[in-house]
């Protein structure tokens, strides 16, 4: 593997009384899209929320570029260069698209405005609805806005939680294209249940089950491993 950007070591996370992550470990390299996959309730979203500092781990270490971040606040982690796109997109509905982007821009300098321009080239609809309330956007446009906010800063690691959820197949296609473009500038960790999307953008994978990593490897191999897909992802070959 190339230089390790993120290393999660034996992390345990509780939500209330529930022991969700039970010693999860994984590594993310600098030149790949890593996908966390698994059934509902396997702990995928909890894992990236824990990395983002939104859920405090009770045990274990999380290292970002060699620095421990498991005790840091979410805003400190974000300022280190980690972007986050939550499952519900986290768009501020009462704010305009412009205001959403403005909240996201941590520094309003020349470089950020250049990134903003590049981002708006990628998401043309956002420029079109620049002054519109984000709450009035379609599901796909909201997802674009959520991703645009996360990459407008100098983000070196992007955590995206189930971006294809609830979106039409044609929108998912354009999302795949977007993520493939983003990975040229930023390391991506993707939580995804849609195996088609996961396999289209992912280079490496980790399968989570009951809060631990049960398998990991190269995505190209998983695509052909019917047994693994059937056992842990509930995907069966038609007629097989």
């Amino acid at each position, binding site marked *: 593997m190339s230089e390790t950007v993120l290393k999660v070591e034996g992390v345990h996370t509780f939500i209330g009384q529930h022991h969700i992550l039970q010693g999860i470990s994984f590594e993310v390299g600098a030149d790949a899209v890593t996908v966390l996959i698994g059934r509902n309730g396997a702990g995928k979203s909890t894992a990236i929320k824990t990395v983002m500092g*939104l859920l405090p781990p009770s045990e274990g270490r999380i290292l970002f570029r060699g620095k421990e971040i498991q005790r840091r*606040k*979410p*805003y400190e982690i974000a300022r280190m260069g980690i972007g986050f796109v939550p499952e519900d997109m986290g768009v*501020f509905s009462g*704010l305009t698209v412009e*205001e959403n982007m403005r*909240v996201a821009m941590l520094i309003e300098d020349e470089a950020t405005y250049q990134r903003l321009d590049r981002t708006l080239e990628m998401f043309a609809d956002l420029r079109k609805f620049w002054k519109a309330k984000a709450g009035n956007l379609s599901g796909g446009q909201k997802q674009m806005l959520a991703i645009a906010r996360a990459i407008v800063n100098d983000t070196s690691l992007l955590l995206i939680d189930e971006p294809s959820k609830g979106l039409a197949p044609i929108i998912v296609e354009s999302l795949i294209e977007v993520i493939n473009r983003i990975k040229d500038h930023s390391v991506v960790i993707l939580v995804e249940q849609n195996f088609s999307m996961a396999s289209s953008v992912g280079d490496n994978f980790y399968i989570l089950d009951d809060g631990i990593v049960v398998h990991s490897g190269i995505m190209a191999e998983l695509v052909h491993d019917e047994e693994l897909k059937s056992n842990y992802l509930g995907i069966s070959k038609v007629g097989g």
Partner: protein
Amino acid sequence: MAEIILRRWGGELAIAGAIALFLLPLLGIPGKTYLTLTIAGLAMGMLLFLVASGLSIIFGLMDVLNFAHGSLFAWGAYVGFTVFNLMMDWVEADSVLMNLGVFAIAIVIAMIAVAILGIILERVIVRRVYGNHLFQILITFGATIVLVELISVFWGPNDEVMTVPFTFRGNWDVMDVIVDRYRVICIVIGLLVYSVIKLILKKTKIGTIVRAGVENREMVQAMGHNIFLLFTGVFAVGAGLAALGGVAMSVFSLQVYPHMGSTYLLFAFIIVIIGGLGSVTGSLVGALIVGLSYNYVAYLVPWAAAGSNVIIMIVILLVRPTGLFPSGE
């Protein structure tokens, strides 16, 4: 059919209904008295807005039930009272400039002093109970007791007379309608404060972040903003607004007393519930509804004045449980 009419003409119907309700008291009140009561109601509404807006922003952004808000209001009144006493020459001077000067100085000093008190309160007490409403109620109620007792220690337990600046006294007679001078000043202050708050929330980055925080605190943090610093700032601003309300209200009611906060805190909570949590416009509209209805009902059915606000609140909650202007709208 009714649904289609409501969808198509809902806004216009609401405005027509509001105007009809606003004019309804004319059936039982002579025209000139109605105008006098309306000005009194607007002034009272604006003063209540000053108290409620801070409470609403604190509740909306921080999800904190701050029962100590009333005592911060009382502290503001007492600091203003002290400034007035120290600058009595300016208060009693027959000069609009000097009167406005001492009033402005009292407001600024009260706002700064109470904002500092608010920061201490948030850092020492409120921060420990984020996310737990029951503890918030208990601990801020406890803080209220301490703050009110401290007023008694520093200024004494008795009611004190608040002197009205010389040129603020008396009335104007506008075509036989009696217009109290200070009430007009209160209306102007209220509109000014509302405009400044809206301007900050709409046009500045920090205001936009606060509005975003009212919608989704977790996301604001994940975008790199120190929400706790924001909380402290908002709490300080809320406390400052309470102090402004305290100074203005004490001149309006001609007195200060240690427990004055609890009287107005009840009004403030009713206003925040009517207007919608976290909405400044909601607070303004709610405050005007409360101020106007209180004055109209107090004239028509004096014994029902206090209860009328609670009835309005119940009706609005039944029709629109999130208040008239839920945050984000």
